[in-house]
């Protein structure tokens, strides 16, 4: 059984393999002494952590657990203070001759990776601290990547790290069998081409000589220079390199042209995107734009990739959680790249899950909604519910009227969240007949909350124009019934919409319609009476109070209580004119 973790897709956070040691098939043969066993666990933890970056996103919780496990195991292995001196064999690591790691699968074997890079001994001193361990982990993790570069191997990476408490001994990894023949073949090739006879001439002119004296160079001055190559300046340096090359190509140098420079620009772009370096990205796009005429066919498509879906997804993904508004550099970037930006933004928004990122994306969609509102509308109707909500908000923010129209259409949407969002848009919108119609239609919604919300909106934003429709709607729906809360809200709403008309309606609802009506529509009538009482409670006329009392006298116990409560509320609120 292999020691490998179960394969998982990088973005799949659902798979959470336990960092606990999976029993090795050969564990029984690996590590006999306590020390060896501890070393075995430590090495397994190191190997697992290093390979985990191939499988998981670095931010994944699984990575965290692997790192924690590594710290624990390594601390235990180094607890005695003795150094761990590993002999590196093709598939094994041995500690004082005892095998403490064995993995024959070349793809997974940490030992094999190190061996073929030429590492023959790895010594971790008892004084090695966590920082050094992390750097070792970083090196072993990085060594699994970087396919195209041929830039580093484990030996050169370990050298770069400048470890104080970790040492390696290394030889060339795999080597020619006949080094002399190999060297001869190389020598035979070399020398056929040589530098021009006068390379690096003419000499640059220099002035008069100065005496040679010792100068004390301040530490601060040295550090200032060293800082120019600090890791955190890499983005700026990369952008500077890219800019310099574009400018050279623009100067028309015969040595380098746009075709050679643009692939490099693309690499720098990817790096800046990975680092979330918006300012540098924007600078680069500006430079490209200034020089687009050099080769429009190549440069324009490249420029677009700075804010295509992939790029925007990366930018949004790196948005800090605390960010409320789009970064100015991102806005500038999009302003520089107008083509299809709305499409890209909508795509990016659709792909994004993070709250802050969605927020930023939505605001950007709102900003550029005017580019093509109808495109936005078309996406609204086809997107998934949460995206639809965001797009509706964005559209409403940019083009309120159009947003209201779309919201009015969307209130028939099968998804409650969409309807709710549409309702919010409508609530915020000024009163319009179309909206009113749409709202009234919503009174037939099966969702109680929806209907209540509609009634609130009608009550707060509309007037007598919706009175009659509301009356009809109420009468139509009463036989099927609706909650008491809704009945009371209808009553209050009607009273507010048109007090004078409401009194007449309420009186009609409160009094039974003849003997037959009393029996045939008792259920609906009872509800209408309830509505009426609730509404009458808000009317100032004495007739309203009279009607309430009369209704109470005829009503069943429940309705009577409602009437009495309404009367009491009237008195409390001073509604009566009497």
């Amino acid at each position, binding site marked *: 059984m292999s020691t490998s973790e179960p394969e998982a897709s990088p973005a799949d956070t659902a798979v959470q393999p336990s960092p606990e040691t999976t029993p090795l098939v050969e564990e029984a043969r690996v590590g006999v002494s306590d020390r060896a066993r501890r070393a075995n666990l430590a090495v397994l933890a190191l190997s697992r952590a290093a390979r985990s970056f191939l499988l998981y996103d*670095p931010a994944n919780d699984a990575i965290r657990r692997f790192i924690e496990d590594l710290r624990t195991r390594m601390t235990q292995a180094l607890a005695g203070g003795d150094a761990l001196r590993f002999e*590196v064999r093709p598939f094994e690591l041995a500690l004082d001759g005892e095998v403490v790691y064995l993995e024959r699968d070349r793809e997974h074997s940490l030992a094999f990776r190190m061996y073929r890079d030429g590492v023959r001994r790895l010594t971790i001193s008892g004084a090695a601290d966590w920082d050094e361990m992390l750097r070792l982990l*970083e090196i072993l993790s990085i060594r699994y990547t970087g396919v195209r570069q041929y*830039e580093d*191997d484990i030996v050169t990476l370990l*050298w770069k790290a400048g470890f104080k408490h970790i040492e390696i001994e290394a030889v060339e*990894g795999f080597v020619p069998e006949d080094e002399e023949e190999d060297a001869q073949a190389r020598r035979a090739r070399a020398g056929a081409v040589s530098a021009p*006879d006068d390379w690096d001439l003419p000499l640059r002119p220099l*002035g008069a000589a100065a005496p040679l004296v010792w100068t004390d160079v301040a530490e601060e001055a040295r550090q200032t220079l060293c800082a120019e190559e600090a890791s955190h300046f890499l983005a700026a340096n990369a952008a500077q390199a890219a800019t310099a090359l574009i400018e050279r190509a623009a100067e028309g140098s015969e040595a380098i042209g746009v075709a050679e420079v643009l692939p490099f620009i693309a690499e720098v772009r990817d*790096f800046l995107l990975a680092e979330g370096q918006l300012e540098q990205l924007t600078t680069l796009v500006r430079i490209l734009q200034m020089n687009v005429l050099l080769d429009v066919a190549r440069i324009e498509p490249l420029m677009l990739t700075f804010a295509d879906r992939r790029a925007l997804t990366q930018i949004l993904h790196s948005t800090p959680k605390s960010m409320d508004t789009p970064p100015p550099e991102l806005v500038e970037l999009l302003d520089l790249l107008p083509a299809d930006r709305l499409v890209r933004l909508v795509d990016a928004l659709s792909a994004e899950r993070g709250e802050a990122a969605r927020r930023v994306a939505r605001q950007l969609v709102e900003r550029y909604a005017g580019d093509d509102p109808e495109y936005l509308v078309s996406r609204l109707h086809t997107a998934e519910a949460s995206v639809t909500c965001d797009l509706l908000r964005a559209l409403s923010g940019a083009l309120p009227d159009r947003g209201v129209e779309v919201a009015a259409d969307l209130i028939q949407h099968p998804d409650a969240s969409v309807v709710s969002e549409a309702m919010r848009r409508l609530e915020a919108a000024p009163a319009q007949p179309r909206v009113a119609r749409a709202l009234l239609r919503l009174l037939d919604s099966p969702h109680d909350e929806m209907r209540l919300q509609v009634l609130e909106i009608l009550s707060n934003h509309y007037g007598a124009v919706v009175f009659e429709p509301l009356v009809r709607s109420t009468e139509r729906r009463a036989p099927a019934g609706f909650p008491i809360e809704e009945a009371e809200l209808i009553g209050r709403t009607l009273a507010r919409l048109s007090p004078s008309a409401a009194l007449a309606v309420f009186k009609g609802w409160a009094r039974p319609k003849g003997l037959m009506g009393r029996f045939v529509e008792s259920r609906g009538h009872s509800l209408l009476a309830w509505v009426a009482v609730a509404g009458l409670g808000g009317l100032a006329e004495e007739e309203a109070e009279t009607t309430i009392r009369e209704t109470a006298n005829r009503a069943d116990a429940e309705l009577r209580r409602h009437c009495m409560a309404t009367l009491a509320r009237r008195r409390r609120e001073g509604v009566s004119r009497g």
Partner: protein
Amino acid sequence: MDDIAVAQAQLGKAINRARAGEDRALAGRVRDEGERLVKLLYGALGMAKLHALTNRAFDQPIADITRALGVLLDLLGAVHLLAVEEQVYMNDIRIRLEGGDIGDDFGKKLREHGIGGLSFHGPLTETQFRGLVAILAREPDPAARAGLQAALREAGIDSLDLAGIHHFRLAGEAGGHTAVDAATMSERGAALLDEVFENLAGSRQPNPLPTRRLVTGLLDAGAATQWVVVEPEDVSPYAAHNLRVCNLVLLLGNALGLTPGVLQDLGVAAMFHDAGYALCSASPEQQIEGERAFDLHPLLAVRVLLRQRGFHEAKIRRVMTALDHHRRYDDSRGVPSLFGRIVAIAEDYDTLTQPRSGGLSPRRALSLMAAAAGGVYDPVLLPLFVNLMGAYPRQTRVRLSDGRVGRVVSLPRAKESFARPVVRVERLADGRTAPDETDVDLAWEAGLRIESVFDEGASTSIEPDLATLKVVNEARRAAARVGANRAMPASLSQVPPPATAPRTTLPSAAAKPLSEGALPGVLRDLYLGNKSGTLHLRRQAKHLSLLIWEGNALHASSTAPEDHLGAVAVREGLMSQTDLDRANEAPAGQGKRLGFVLREMGIMDDAQVGDALTVHAREVILKALSWTEGSYSFEEHALSPELIANPPLRLSTPDLILEAVRRLTDPDVVRYHLGDVDRVARLSAHPRVKAMSVGLAPLDGYTLSRIDGQTTLRELMRLVPGERLAVMQSLFGLLCVGLIELLPPASSPRRSGQPG
């Protein structure tokens, strides 16, 4: 965030940086396509045993192989397929060849041909792939790899290189890179640099890893704190330059305080900074030369470097170094990158001190550069560099207060030893050669000091002779083409000596007393002996030196101000004092030869400068010829062409000798140097004499006509008409130039009846 979260974030950032420009699936795609390529190739090799390559059965497999290679080249830039024991690797990715022993068999097939792998640097057409399969499928060539490479070339397959058979180096096997000494490291480094240059000229993709290994090797050997480069013999100037520049930048970078990783990148950047010249020389039909090459090479280097795919911090640094290494610190476009500024210092120092391009003394070069801090060079880096090199930089030739002469071999070890270096004594005070590696550490020798520095003063820069450089380099290339180990032609008379030929011998003769009239004979011996080296003449504080090349005087110099070129030229009426003052004061001319400055300023043209140089040299030599006391010594050494003045002097040693003899006005002196006048004179049969061109006076011609191999000098002095002194001068002159020689007394045939 807790510390684990911080670690996770940092690791994530590092991993993302390492992956920048590469999607996560890249390795998988490479593995898949690589497996496809290997299996197809393996299958085609098997099929080739059964069918001719023209069989249509190969159509689809060859098309598939061609496509697979194209995909891989798109992904990787260059495809390196290597079979190591039973494993197959493609650009460091192990190819899984599940099922059967394909990997092992494939490796065996390659090994039959003496190869271990194939490196594709460009796409192959289907026809070329058929050719490749045919070549690999046939019986191995007895010449193995070389034969195979030749067959590929014949088949028009130029973008494919063959790798040797590799194996995993076992633990305990010799050859660990940390165990290699500096000399071996330098030799390997030089070979690698030449190979890299060749590859880049051949449109190959740069492969930084071997260079990085070299740099770490140099660093392990101590290159950050001491001089470790040992220039191998017969190394190309380009490789030597890059090795030296690398050592210099590592010294400077370490002094600055760069971290190990950054230092390593700096070393690699230094190795590639002049890579642009590979493109200048790539095509014999379209060589880029001269100023155009100089102007273009930084960007050409960038073009080469950008062939490497994938983003990497080190690549950015290399690109900026290539772009910036000739830019001034105060460039109006902005301050160059740090690496560019560091390499600029190292490169210029090396270039100034190399004979090929200036030949300034290290001390002089450093002094000129020191004055340019803040303008040309970084104002912090340059002083740091001066501190590193010291008041007497390595290779400065000095005379100690006790008369010994030597060369500085150390860098300052501390501030206190800035002006008190270690000197390797070359010559003792009495002129004898010092025992090997006699070092004097002036930091510990309070009673000793450096009294003077050689090669300082007016003669501080030497113009490169580009024509000679061209000849030398062509000879080197020709030697390489015939597979010689870059050996130079046997006869130096065919081709001037190599540009970088070191002084292989110390002064070969002890100083001898210089008596009146002795010098012509010395010059004759040097001329007829075809000697090359430096003839030193000393009288009290004055020191004259004559540069002799194959017996001819090329250049003369003197420490006496009145004997300098300018003074002589004014004295001889070849230029005015005003012009001389202008030339001496011109800032642009500081540190350069006067002849060069005069030409540059338009004061003289080439011909006039040639005349002035000739007159100057003649005056100096004749002055020396007139000395009646002093000493001389001849330091034989191979002459670097760069030391040849430009334009060449129109001086004939025979003419000089004759003129010198004619200036001997004391008849007793002339008589003394004729020696036994009863010896018979005969015409010389020396081959050099036959081709000699010398301006003979009429008397000389008549004297020559009376030489018959039987007449003695005494008889000739009677026979030749003219004043006795003039006749003696003529005879002495002819003897000195070697046109006549005297037979030993016993062998002189006597005419009957002639007095003894």
